[in-house]
């Protein structure tokens, strides 16, 4: 059972401010409860499904510079550095 505190905690982990957990609580709980249907599936012996490629299909190790100076497409920059908020 998911609690309001869980939702607040996860929102924090996902770095999204939510004004209050109530607006999400009922809906998320309902959806998470619905997910419990997976407990009924007979799938114990199943493998993890993944796509495969051969080594030969991988990218050749070659230096090709990108066609334009990307930094000018970015915001918050100083000189050619990107600016981020202070860390603490």
């Amino acid at each position: 059972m998911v609690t309001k505190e869980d939702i607040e905690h996860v929102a924090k982990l996902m770095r999204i401010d939510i004004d209050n957990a109530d607006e999400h609580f009922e809906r998320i709980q309902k959806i998470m409860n619905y997910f419990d249907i997976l407990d009924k599936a007979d799938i114990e012996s199943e493998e993890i499904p993944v796509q495969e490629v051969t080594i030969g299909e991988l990218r050749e190790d070659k230096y090709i510079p990108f066609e334009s100076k990307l930094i000018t497409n970015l915001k918050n920059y100083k000189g050619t550095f990107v600016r981020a908020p202070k860390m603490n």
Partner: protein
Amino acid sequence: MSLAISALEYISNVKNGTTTAEEFIAKTLDRISKHESKVHAFISINENALEQARAIDKKIKSKEKVGAFYGMPISIKDNISVKDGKTTCASKMLQEYVSPYDATVVTKLKSQDAILIGKANLDEFAMGIATEFSAFGPSKNPWNTDYVPGGSSGGSAASVSALECVASLGSDTGGSVRNPASFCSVVGLKPTYGLVSRYGLVSYANSIEQIGPIARRVEDVALLLNHISGRDANDNTTIDGKNQDYLGEIGSGIQDKKIGVIKEMSRGAGLDKNVESAFWRAVDSFEKLGAKIEEMSLDMVEFTVATYYVLTTAEAGSNLSRYDNIRYGYQMDLEGYEFKSYISKARKNFGPEVTRRMILGGFVPSAGFAGKYLLKALKVKSKLKRQVLEAFKKFDFLISPTVPILPFRFGEKVDDPLAMYMADINTVTANLTGVPAISVPFEIHNGLPIGIQIHANTLQEKQLLQAAYALQGTTSLPGAPL
């Protein structure tokens, strides 16, 4: 000159001089300016379209080599990158983001002289089935503007249905091409996973989604697929589709083909009675076309909606992490914040549905829950795929209604996300298994469209399009009454 023509007709008209690219684009832009206030299919319009059309006309006139589309107007869902233009994903987070590169499909279309007429509206980051979750306002269904156009590629389907372009590219993660195609009475294809490059498609749930064409005719969808499919060095997940010609032999018919009716999608409590009866009339049509029909069961379908939402929220939670508003995004001053508080505040600009899915996406792969949700969902996916591939040993096609419900009014489902998610039950199987599926318009019930879904085995798009074309031939549907 009518705008209500197919892509093939457009191309032959331009080739034989009946019309010019400039004339057609001008008329299309007129149509857009006249109807956009009602339909709101676009987030942005290509301001150089006319100029590009003239350049193509000039090439035609001077007998230079011209690309296959001859200046045909195509809309592009706004989660597909077009160089030097905004790619917003209908999100406030990316309202000012300009892509420095073209998606592979865009490069291909441009090289074939298609004109990218505008960027189509969608549910924010492609999460939704009604285009109601666009941060820039919903698109409307051209059949009845009180009703949703479906989603998430609602702008794409509406723009095609409203004659604001000839065709469109959408993306389909759990039905996002097929659902609005069904709701707007147009054709929409979700190709085999890996047949079309995703490079430049903004990821929502990258392990299952594909870019897919939307058009008013099956043959137009085939034409588009001819030009957007193929291996791409920029996308490690693309596979070899053997460069098939999907358009050639499209009229081969489906005599003696074996068609399975997926019981779990075609009967039962969640299915609208009108959709159900239309579907069984479509079954009759298939039978009359010479196909052998048999009802069959895919018992894992029961778990597909839960599986789909576990996998997609987990992947979305990760894919959308990069939107922290530091390198690109919208203007928000850095002063007065530290990193954590800054990005948490910035990410408040996600809409409510995206926020909800991000929270779900924080739960399902977390250390305490991964075994309960994510691992099981992966295993369901694996078993479902085996069941579907097994079924294709016996059947050429598997069919169902595309959406179990009719188009609904705005606001009708917004407050009950779970009910909304259940409307995906018929479309998510193709995404979870990677097989191709198409939605073909079949009936209009009380002014609301109903589409039929056909699945085929992996990389059997050619056969799939033949079946869709055959079904299309049994119908004679009007255009949207705009």
